[in-house]
């Protein structure tokens, strides 16, 4: 049975930056931005779901992040993922791509056996496109980055078309393989209303622990079991659940460090203001012709 694992990330919604989220110094206040499912990860999940719909099997979706990242897991369940897994631990905080891929590779190994790993090409908050290939390297498996479409799966191999500089190529790889997916690869399906009603109550271990804390009449083990039986339990993994070295995750395991951050002071060119009138614009055209810029 084909098992696909989709790696997704909750990111700040940079596409909808409004004045409300700007600090006085012109920087963006990340905590005020709405958090959304990274768009290319959504396309990656769509491809994983199509593979399942066509070839059978199941799709597990995984995210690493703070407890509230379970929001994007529920969205993935609404779309059709079979199960979801939240990877969350303070020890993972401050991770760069190397430390992130280390933990993700351990999670994928824990979810083994698997045939395919899907991820978006890159996340909009960093644009590095590094976590996918680095996870594949740590798993010791092949990769197809910039995937445009899946052509075929047969005899334990996947054939896919990927973008290359100035064209495309078609690759066939023995599975397991990790694919990173570009946005144009697939239009993600909308949420199923039925699934939305069912899975809006899906809860992580952290959610349930909080419930118990607030209500002394509840017992954690019983709650977990109840949610599990109704298919509403989101697996929750912490550092202790994974076979990991502490010095390879979080800030400790991250070789890249921010040495300093500079605000850019715009020096302001010697700018000429042009009135948006016929005369003003004619003057601009003349000036550009005089400087041999327009001919």
């Amino acid at each position: 049975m084909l098992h696909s694992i989709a790696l997704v990330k909750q990111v700040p919604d940079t596409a909808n930056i409004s004045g409300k989220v700007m600090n006085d110094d012109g920087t963006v206040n990340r905590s005020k931005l709405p958090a959304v499912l990274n768009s290319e990860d959504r396309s990656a999940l769509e491809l994983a779901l199509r593979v399942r719909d066509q070839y059978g099997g199941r799709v597990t979706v995984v995210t690493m992040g703070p407890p509230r990242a379970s929001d994007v897991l529920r969205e993935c369940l609404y779309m059709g993922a079979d199960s979801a897994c939240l990877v969350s631990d303070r020890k993972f905080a401050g991770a760069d791509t190397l430390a992130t891929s280390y933990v993700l590779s351990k999670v994928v190994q824990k979810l083994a056996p698997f045939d395919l790993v899907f991820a978006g090409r890159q996340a909009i908050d960093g644009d590095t496109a590094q976590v996918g290939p680095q996870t594949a390297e740590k798993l010791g498996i092949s990769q197809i980055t910039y995937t445009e479409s899946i052509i075929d799966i047969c005899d334990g191999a996947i054939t896919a078309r990927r973008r290359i500089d100035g064209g495309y190529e078609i690759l066939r790889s023995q599975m397991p393989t990790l694919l990173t997916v570009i946005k144009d690869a697939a239009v993600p399906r909308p949420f199923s209303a039925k699934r939305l009603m069912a899975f809006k109550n899906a809860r992580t271990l952290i959610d349930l622990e909080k419930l118990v804390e607030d209500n002394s009449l509840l017992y954690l083990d019983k709650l977990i079991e109840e949610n599990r039986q109704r298919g509403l339990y989101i697996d929750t993994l912490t550092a202790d659940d994974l076979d990991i070295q502490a010095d390879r995750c979080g800030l400790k395991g991250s070789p890249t460090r921010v040495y300093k951050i500079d605000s850019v002071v715009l020096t302001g060119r010697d700018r000429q203001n042009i009135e948006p009138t016929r005369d003003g614009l004619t003057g601009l055209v003349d000036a550009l012709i005089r400087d041999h810029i327009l001919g």
Partner: protein
Amino acid sequence: MNQIKNSDVWVFVEQRDGKAADVSLELLCKGRKLADAMESRLISIVLGHNVDAVAAQTFAYGSNESLLISNPALEHYRTGPYERHLVKLIHEMRPRIVLFGATIIGRDLAPRIASATQSGLTADCTDLQIADIVYLRQSYPRLLLQIRPAFGGNIIATIITPETHTQMATVREGVMELTPVECPSRPVITSITFTADPTDDLLQIIERHREGSKINLKSAPIVVAGGYGLGTKENFRLVNDLAKVLGAEVAGTRAAVDAGFIPTERQVGQTGLTIRPKLYIAIGISGAIQHRAGMQESNKIVAINVDPDAPIFDVAHYGIVGDAIEVIPKLIDAYKARLK
């Protein structure tokens, strides 16, 4: 000798169909400067089949030595064999810096190599420098400063990788200047033996199709660019209209690409192209640092925006505060009138 090798600067020279990528030659020029600052050598790494000419070409751009691995299995880029050979070389020779173009190949390969060698890697740098650094009370001589705009407005982050021996970065095409050296060093091409591995056959190229990019933004003297501020795809047509009249190429911001106004290939900025045309007309572009990184060195910049406080005006030579929908037709008329 070992001492010297330990501070070498490497550039992975990407070749496609036997031709060196422009970005690799640009990186060699930058790598030369970094090697000079470190008093070390610049080494070009060339993988392919029958690509001696590519290795030979690197000396004009400052390399001291070229490591060449030639084999039919390397003719077209594949992750497996490229990764394996580079990782082996890095383990053996321990370069201090390795640079990659932020192309599709570079973005496929560099992260795997960084992962396999446990090295730090910074994507899409807009500048690289060498400096003596004190970080957390420890001093680090001659560290690579990896400089790039960071998410969140007008911020430039300087990234360092103080604890890993090999420091890696990717850089987009057009960001570094192409400045051939005046006195190239004597060509030294060292052939490295290719070693086959059974895992190479796990992934095969079935079909490959490349056509040279039809878009020539990089060498266009005039570029008309539109941003999200235009609001709709319909309004964005005005950008095309103006470009057509001026004989210019059309470009856009990332937000314009995301909104579907214009294809990705025409994106200007940190994660797109960096260009230096004679004239850059920015329409409905607020001027986020990520966009400015790709166009601020244009010879003349004209900005059209309704918001007089838009940061784009700070890099513009000519500023027009107004609604593009009204300004562009007037500008087209004014230009046509002068042509007569």
